[in-house]
């Protein structure tokens, strides 16, 4: 599609990339052409530390179906975790 339609979320946490662990503060999410995945379009997630260089990034390119499955898994894990630990 090649659009600039992009969602961003401020996040708190860490991600592990080729150089080890790093703090991440921003998630950029968009549905557009992938760079690597052999798909026409993919749900792309970039986890970055906005104050670091361009290479400080953990990237995901997922099919739409697998992205929805991931969302469901995240919701399920959060609910189960909340039941177990509170929160």
């Amino acid at each position: 599609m090649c659009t600039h339609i992009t969602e961003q979320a401020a996040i708190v946490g860490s991600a592990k990339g080729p150089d080890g662990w790093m703090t991440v503060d921003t998630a950029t999410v968009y549905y557009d052409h992938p760079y690597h995945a052999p798909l026409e379009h993919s749900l792309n997630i970039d986890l970055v530390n906005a104050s670091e260089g361009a290479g400080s990034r953990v990237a995901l390119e997922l099919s739409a179906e697998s992205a929805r499955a991931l969302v469901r898994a995240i919701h399920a894990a959060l609910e189960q975790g909340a039941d177990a630990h509170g929160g």
Partner: protein
Amino acid sequence: MYEGMIAETISLPGHNGDHILAYSARPLGNGPAPGVVVIHHMPGWDEWTREVARKLAARGYAVLAPHLYSRLGPGSPDDVAARARASGGVADDQVVGDIGASIRYLRTQPSSNGRVGIIGFCSGGRHAYLAACRLPDVDAAVDCWGGGVIVDDPSQLTERGPVAPIDLTAQLGCPLLGIFGNEDGNPTPDQVDRTEEALRHHGKAYEFHRYDGAGHGFFAVDRPAYRPHQATDAWGKVSRFYDQHLRSPAGD
């Protein structure tokens, strides 16, 4: 028959004199050779962009593919492209400036025949349309499935992209070749029709080719969108178009 080319990364002064990277691919020899500027798509200055540069060089063109996200580096092209997206994309003025600088670079090479065309893919197709309207020294432009040439929702216009390229059609100063897939969602077949209508209305030289069974980005050999028959035919049309408009020396 011997063939050879040299392909390498160079830097050149781009918009505002900023140094930007570019991938240069050109046939060996004294020339004269026409030039082509390759304008990359939104995923960035990637391997496929380099392949396109080498493909056109193998057909006898001196090619320059400017890294339009250079200012956001250093880093691998995909990381830099991610940064470009996160920051809202690059400004049209800057992109047009970088394309103009690339045209001047090619035209001033000793082996140039004085003629330079441009070709862009996806968002680069939109940039090609825009540059062909705004720059006076483009000799032939190719728009491959450029989305956003027509902007139906004015809220999509931004500070970085303040004008819909279609609104500049009256200023188009060179022949335009358009390549589109009829299954594309951006641009839609209706938008392609309306772009053609604007070109006809303003009496511009153009040729549009629409392909059934093809969607967006159907030249990409490493993607499911690849359509070998349509892509082979369309590459032939690109070659004929450039041969017609770029092979004769400047001034003819």
